[in-house]
């Protein structure tokens, strides 16, 4: 991973001789010498500096100064913790505060040194019950930043976890609870094993409760930490969470009323609930949540928010047929709204939105014939066709799923599904075949299969041999023949079957 700059690197950095460096040095010197000054008219310079100005080129010397400062800060903390006399509390708070400052420098926080100097047991001690808020806050902050480091650094927090969990109880002051939740969020974000430990230590319930109030940064931090805690892959936490009193109500409330930032974190909670827990999904789809998500999707322009909202919708639709069958009923306004909102995403410039919106549409298009007709006649159709021919591969593949699903009726028992001729003919005549043949030519097995399957629909379903002509014109025969000796047996067979059936000895006799 990251290295301290080696000698060569430093050499390179220092050897760069041009105006930029000089400017930086000038600024740095000015600020050092003069404290605060105007860089130019109208702009004040903040003089409220906690730490001296860094050079952005970390010189080894500075780093080792930082490390030395850190180990002495930990030393002082050790003495402060042991100290029993007058002013003990203040001394401890000061020591913690100093360590926190050193760990809050954005360049290279000296986490490893802090750990090696023995910070963790001291920080854990500083979290003991009955301690003053300021002390708890500083200690939790130190732990937060240590936990934001490398995996082994996060794991070093183990001894402190039960204490952190304890301080997110309802008796704690909000800033303390929030800082502890933040630290726990970092720990949970590290990996499955730590999540499991936190859950077994009882972190879920108090964290969930922190999400219930109407507003405040604490609610947002708690939601974020919670999303890290339940993200699995073990679905147990997600299933537990949905059962906690007040959680569903809070989710709905926040999704309805809160600002974008909180809504974003809540949406991520919903993403994991819906992706991991079928129970949670079935509970959520019976509430107003879909409606609220669709409204957010339609009205927001914040990518941060749109992604989890879109994905939540996708998960809820993919996870339970009830959603498409009973909630997104054709003819109801909610269904028109979702198609419109998804179309908005298809038009977006963001790849993630386009891709995942197509995925969601593909699942709605896997529903009833009425659903397929609705999508087919909506503004989504021309967008899909355009994306199929021009978009990057990953989006193209998802769009292919939509188009194909729109052309095939729901399966009834065994036997191949029947075609929806109107849709197929119209799409093909609008030029969609090329995009599918691109997929056949791609390196992706799944995409190639998709392409071949659609070609079969075209060859079967277009009237008067039009399918064969079109496939030939688009070099489809060539694309299929590439699979003749392909290593994948399925693709080989499919391609060969199509060629044999539709381009066999009889083909060309009418030409």
């Amino acid at each position, binding site marked *: 991973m990251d290295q301290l700059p080696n000698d060569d690197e430093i050499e390179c950095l220092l050897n760069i001789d041009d105006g930029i460096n000089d400017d*930086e040095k000038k*600024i740095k010197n000015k600020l050092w010498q003069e404290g605060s000054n105007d860089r130019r008219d109208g702009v004040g310079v903040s003089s409220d500096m906690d730490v001296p100005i860094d050079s952005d080129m970390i010189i080894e010397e500075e780093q080792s100064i930082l490390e030395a400062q850190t180990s002495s800060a930990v030393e002082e903390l050790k003495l402060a913790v042991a100290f029993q006399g007058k002013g003990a509390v203040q001394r401890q708070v000061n020591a913690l505060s100093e360590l926190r400052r050193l760990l809050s420098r954005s360049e290279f926080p000296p986490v490893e040194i802090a750990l090696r100097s023995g910070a963790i047991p001291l920080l854990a001690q500083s979290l003991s019950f009955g301690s003053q808020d300021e002390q708890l806050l500083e200690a939790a902050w130190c732990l937060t*930043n240590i936990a934001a480091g490398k995996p082994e650094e996060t794991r070093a927090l183990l001894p402190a976890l039960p204490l952190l969990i304890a301080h997110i109880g309802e008796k704690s002051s909000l800033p303390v609870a929030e800082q502890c939740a933040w630290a726990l969020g*970092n720990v949970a974000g590290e990996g499955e094993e730590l999540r499991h430990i936190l859950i077994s230590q009882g972190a879920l319930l108090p964290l969930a409760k922190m999400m219930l109030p109407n507003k405040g940064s604490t609610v947002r931090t708690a939601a974020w930490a919670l999303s890290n805690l339940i993200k699995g892959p073990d679905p147990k936490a997600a299933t537990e969470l949905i059962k906690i009193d007040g959680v569903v109500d809070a989710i709905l409330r926040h999704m309805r009323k809160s600002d974008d930032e909180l809504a974003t974190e809540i949406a991520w909670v919903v993403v994991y609930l819906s992706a991991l827990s079928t129970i949670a999904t079935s509970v959520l789809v019976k509430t107003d949540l879909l409606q609220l998500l669709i409204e957010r999707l339609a009205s927001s322009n914040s990518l*941060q928010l749109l992604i989890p909202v879109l994905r939540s919708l996708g998960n809820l639709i993919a996870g339970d047929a009830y959603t498409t069958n009973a909630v997104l009923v054709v003819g109801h306004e909610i269904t028109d709204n979702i198609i419109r909102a998804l179309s908005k995403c298809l038009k977006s410039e963001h790849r*993630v939105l386009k891709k995942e919106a197509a995925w969601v549409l593909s699942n709605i298009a896997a529903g009833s014939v009425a659903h397929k007709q609705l999508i087919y006649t909506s503004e989504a159709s021309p967008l899909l066709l355009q994306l199929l021919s021009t978009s990057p591969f990953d989006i193209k593949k998802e769009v292919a799923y939509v188009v194909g699903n729109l052309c095939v009726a729901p399966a009834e028992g065994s036997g191949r599904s029947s075609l929806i001729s109107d849709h197929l003919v119209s799409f093909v005549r609008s030029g969609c075949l090329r995009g599918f043949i691109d997929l056949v030519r791609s390196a992706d097995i799944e995409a190639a299969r998709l392409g071949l399957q659609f070609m079969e629909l075209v060859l079967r379903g277009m009237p008067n041999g039009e399918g064969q002509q079109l496939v030939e014109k688009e070099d489809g025969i060539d694309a299929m023949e590439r699979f003749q000796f392909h290593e994948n047996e399925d693709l080989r067979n499919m391609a060969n079957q199509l060629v044999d059936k539709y381009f066999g000895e009889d083909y060309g006799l009418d030409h």
Partner: protein
Amino acid sequence: MMMVDNHLQTQTQLQSEFQYWLPVLRRFGPDDPFFASGNIERELLAKQVALDLTEEEKQQLRNLEDEHREVFCPIVGCVARLRSLAEFEDHYNARHTACCSVCSRVYPTSRLLSIHVSEAHDSFFQAKAARGYPMYECLVEGCGVKLKSYKSRHQHLMDKHNFPSSFEFFKKSRPSKKERVKKTQRKKQQHATEDGEGSSAMQVEEETLDGLVSALSKLTPSDSSPSAISFGRRHTRGLAFVPRVVHRETKK
């Protein structure tokens, strides 16, 4: 979905039946690669500019907006005038960052951004590269050399342009962690010539090294954006911005 098709059974070889198109619900687990690019977006949170303001400063800011004062963009070389925080953020995002719309990594130049987008997010790029076409451009502008793999490009950078072996153009992101940073130090001002590409090869290299080695390798936006931007009235304390750093990679 293997179905018997009598037509085909007249073939001499017994083939499996054609797998016809079947509309089905497709579901993905939360860690499925399908969701990867969206996850990266979340985990980086690169565009979140968190304000570290006291009540007094917030009030100052409100007054600032009320009185229609203008301040200059604090980026060296930028002459934009801005009337509010929101305007500053918009201007800043539009003019001083080259941010990948897929994964939110920030680059010091548009050229490097576009190289990144091709290499990291474009499947056609991957396909061509897999077929052996030299697709990996040398990062130093003006060099023009293209290599067949990420590694050989890395080697070229070291051999021809004296890059350190530890330099990594593309680093993987880390799982969702957030560090709390509260400081008002002024960091390096990004060399922000608005017509940036007029820089010399040396400058690009320096930006590449500085910006990328320290900024990219830690996947923070901070080194291509000032982390403390003073924004306030003449001669007064002013306000400080701190980007909300998400990932920390401790340099060891």
